[in-house]
């Protein structure tokens, strides 16, 4: 084969053309651009927030692409091509240094996001996301609007729920500690309210509870459980001050349920994706023992002691 300039360049260009037609033009022209059932167009402010998302390279750490075998954040919906028909550029992402954001809208209320953007460690102590305080209040607000639109119609539904329970939780908070504690207990199903913490208190379990508290709770509830963590100034209703709960009949079951499911509408997220059962019981007992000073661990009604219990 004689490699003349024409052969080299002509040949290379012919190959490239054929492959562009096959690998890009064909899938482009046959792409199914039917919107999925969650699709809607973004509002103007959401589009402005998307610009901020692009400018700051959020995509380098946050995917927007849930796979069939994912477990964590957003994994309640596997990505479909129809979810993306309005995205230009598409932000699927190539890394998950942070969580997937494809269904982020409505996972948290707006105030949680503001505290998180000001400094991610205020709400998530182990986060390695850089702070975005420098964006300023206005742009953080706009970016939050975009983030709250992720998941589109699914996000709208979740946001409606956030707004409804935000109003309820504010009402309860402003009615004073008695009413607030009562509300916090009453929103938990009866079965859980009657349940004491089944794990006996031990130094080792309190140690473990302490570790979980530092990794998940300290940003809002603070090191002494008074609700004065660094996120507090941005959050309303403010993080719960555990020390007011003494004598207000907060069972281990109530604490477990609220940790597991979160309190939608408030900045309290659910931890069922992140913490296994034992960890939730142990951090609950840590809070009851140290901050409420009123633990029902291992009291009646109780079943058969587990094999390892003293």
């Amino acid at each position, binding site marked *: 084969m004689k490699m003349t300039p024409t052969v080299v360049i002509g040949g290379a260009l012919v190959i490239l053309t054929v492959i562009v037609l096959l690998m890009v033009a064909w899938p482009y022209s046959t792409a199914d651009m039917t919107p999925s059932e969650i699709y809607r167009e973004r509002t103007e402010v959401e589009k402005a927030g998307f610009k901020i998302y692009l400018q700051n390279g959020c995509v*380098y750490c946050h995917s927007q692409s849930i796979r069939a*075998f994912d477990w964590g954040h957003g994994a309640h919906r596997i990505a479909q091509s129809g979810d993306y028909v309005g995205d230009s550029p598409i932000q699927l992402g190539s890394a998950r240094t942070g969580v997937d954001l494809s269904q982020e809208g409505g996972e948290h209320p707006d105030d949680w996001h503001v505290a998180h953007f000001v400094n991610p460690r205020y709400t998530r102590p182990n986060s390695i996301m850089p702070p975005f305080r420098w964006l300023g209040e206005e742009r953080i607000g706009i970016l939050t609007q975009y983030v709250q639109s992720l998941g589109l119609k699914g996000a709208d539904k979740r946001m409606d729920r956030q707004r409804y329970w935000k109003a309820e939780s504010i009402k309860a908070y402003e009615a004073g500690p008695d009413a607030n504690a009562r509300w916090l207990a009453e929103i938990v199903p009866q079965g859980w309210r009657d349940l004491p913490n089944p794990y006996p208190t031990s130094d080792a379990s309190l140690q473990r509870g302490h570790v979980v508290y530092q990794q998940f709770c300290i940003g809002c509830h603070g090191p002494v459980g008074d609700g004065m963590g660094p996120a507090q100034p941005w959050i309303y209703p403010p993080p719960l001050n555990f020390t007011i709960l003494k004598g207000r009949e907060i069972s281990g079951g109530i604490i477990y349920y609220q940790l597991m499911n979160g309190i939608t509408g408030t900045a309290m997220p659910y931890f069922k994706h992140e913490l296994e059962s034992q960890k939730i019981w142990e951090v609950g007992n840590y809070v009851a023992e140290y901050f409420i000073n009123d633990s029902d661990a291992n009291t009646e009604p109780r079943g058969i002691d587990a094999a390892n219990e003293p």
Partner: protein
Amino acid sequence: MASIVNITEKLGSQAAAKAFTLTSAVWFAFATSFGMIAAGYLIAPDFMANIEFIQFGRSRPIHVNLVLFGFVTPGLLAAALYYAPRLLRTHLYSQRLGVVTAILWNLTLVIGVISLGMGYSQGREYAELPWAVDLMIAGLFGLVIFNLFMTVHRRQEPILYVSIWYACAAVVLTAVGYCLGNVIWKPDSGALLGIPDAILLWFYGHNIFGLLLTPLALGVAYYVLPLATRSPLYSHTLSLIGFWSLIVVYTHVGTHHLLQVPVPTWLKAISIVDSVGMVIPVMVFLINIWFTVKGKLGDIHADIGAKFVFTGTIMYFFANIQGSFMALPQVQRVTHFNNWVVGHAHLGVFAFAGITALGGLYFILPKITKKPLYSRYLADLQYWLILIGVSVMIIDLTIVGLLQGNAWLNGETVYRVLPEIHLYYVIRASAGLFILSGAYLGLYNIVRTLFFNPGAATE
């Protein structure tokens, strides 16, 4: 214009190659500096908090774009601007045009860094640069193509050596692919809509390696290694097979970035088959070049340029084996979305193409300055700093990728795994310090060689 004539004269003969050599060395230092900043954010996000220009989401694309278009590409082009006229038995069509290209190249990079730093990003990996900078880059490739083609046109040597094929194909295919991948007809978004945007992006993104860095690096290897060992090329047939199969196979693989995304299954199947098929162009090249230098490792060791380039070929082997492996869907279940891929990128772009580019620079420097290298010792030190740094980094990122991927598959959340990987980020940044030191040592050595070299003239 007068000043360009001035600069060209000041740089003497081989002004174009010298200008590109300096460009590459300078931006290598800048690129690794931004890489260090990004690595620092992953360890301590509050350390350089709230500095808009360099925060992680900005310094990372600056790092990546500078490595691709500031360090590796100009470095490999510097060698090409030297070897093309020699292999064609003629002079470079225009040294002055080459110098102008290098000056504009630097200007474009400065504008690119400022744009990304200020947040003018199009938000597509490897295609972040805004439209105006895209146009400048396309124009720069046009200038290189013109200079190279006119040199080919005026050649005295009728036969084109394999390095010339690679150099010509690389710049032409990249000029086309760059415009296509950056959706240059849509200045505002620089993107298509929905899933087809992802397909085009990764077609383009992978071709930055496949049709730019790889062919240019292979061109350098095909030039440097036979010369350094004074051996004829092992096989012309293998050169031919390697060249054509590279262009055919590599252009198919981009969709392997989208195996877990709703894109057509046939497209995924093609990308997987061709990703595995990459062993053909790679092994054909390696067989050809390794048989060429067989038994001549002493010669390679004696020439610091050849030492770098030969190391690059070994890294090419690993990059290929790993790359083909991780394109398999079962493997990708673990490796996708985590630091394994970052390790692979450092293996391919830096350990293979980057180290080859450095080898090209060290090989041509004594020839274009007609003086020995300022310091062989510093170049050797740089070699070991870089080799140790990048090896530790790749192994570290591979381990941490496996940790993340397996934890996620097991149902652990991203947040839960963060404390486990912190130590690996520290090791990665430490390895980065080795590379950073290597980059600045190299810059010093190259500047001394180009401008302040006390050595006696060799010709």
